[in-house]
């Protein structure tokens, strides 16, 4: 909220003279959905250091009719076997499985998120969990545990910065690393799918199918992540998905924006 009490989206709508009806609808749907799920989860016994966290569109306040209840069971405490509520219990209440591609299928303990940044122990799953937690998550229960873990992670990034002045490059580098990892992993998944024969991209042999294989589907199916969609929409769609005769187009052969007759907004058009 700004000083006037208006949200950033409301301020933007006012300054731009636009209504953004879909975004405001999504904001309302997110708020009501969180309240509903919080109430339903209150019936489950919780460890004092546990928090049920919804991911993706819930964290972005962009919930739509097509959104899933991807959740993380976050624990602000020592690693152990017994944590309440159980994953199965949460799944039954939310009528959903832990989301994104299985990386939240087990309780996530704060120690790994806070201390295992970088080096071998910071594997793909740990990086993904930490970044999604920071960038697009919302607590449904256990708000105190949720807030404490966020603060510990941010403290770790800021306190370990080598130089006294900002920006916090340690944090920025990790965010950039995450976005790059998404893009590299998408190519990796396509490659693996081709090797296993599950791929139907033009370089693969045609196969009968009933549904689009996830690893080869357009990015909005492969990743339920805002930035994956964003990055692949404005980058990959220009390169990977642009229809051509050969279907094998390098970025160097693609026309630039200017060559395509599209002009970027100018300073004046931005109102400065």
């Amino acid at each position, binding site marked *: 909220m700004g000083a006037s009490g208006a949200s950033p989206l409301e301020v933007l709508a006012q300054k731009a003279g636009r209504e953004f009806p879909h975004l405001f609808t999504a904001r309302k749907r997110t708020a009501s959905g969180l309240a509903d799920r919080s109430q339903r989860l209150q019936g489950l016994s919780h460890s004092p250091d546990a928090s049920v966290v919804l991911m993706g569109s819930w964290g972005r306040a962009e919930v739509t009719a097509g959104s899933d209840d991807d959740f993380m069971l976050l624990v602000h405490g020592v690693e152990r076997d017994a944590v309440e509520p159980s994953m199965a219990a949460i799944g039954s209440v939310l009528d959903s499985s832990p989301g994104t591609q299985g990386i939240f299928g087990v309780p996530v303990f704060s120690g790994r998120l806070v201390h295992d940044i970088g080096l071998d122990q910071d594997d793909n799953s740990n990086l993904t969990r930490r970044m999604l937690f920071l960038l697009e998550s919302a607590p449904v229960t256990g708000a105190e545990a949720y807030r404490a873990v966020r603060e510990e992670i941010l403290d770790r990034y800021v306190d370990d910065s080598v130089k006294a002045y900002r920006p916090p490059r340690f944090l920025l580098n990790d965010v950039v690393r995450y976005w790059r990892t998404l893009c590299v992993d998408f190519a990796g998944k396509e490659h693996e799918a081709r090797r296993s024969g599950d791929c139907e991209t033009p370089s693969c042999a045609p196969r009968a199918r009933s549904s689009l294989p996830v690893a080869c589907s*357009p990015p*909005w199916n492969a990743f339920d992540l805002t930035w994956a969609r964003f990055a692949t929409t404005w980058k990959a*769609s*220009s390169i990977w998905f642009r*229809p051509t005769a050969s279907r094998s187009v390098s970025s160097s052969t693609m026309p630039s924006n200017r060559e395509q007759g599209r002009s*970027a907004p100018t*300073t004046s058009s931005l109102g400065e």
Partner: protein
Amino acid sequence: MNDEEFREDLGKVDRDNCADSSAFADVQRIGHELQDGLLALLYETRTLPQVVRDYAIF
């Protein structure tokens, strides 16, 4: 994206049929506009380029 029919149309898009998809064309256009807007915002305004240089490129 809050349109189930639109999302279903996108779900059917693959590399072979994307040229025939109006839904894909819409999303691609929006993506290009967003990219152009971001580039203009970051590099063509009066004050932001200095901030971008100091804080985003390092």
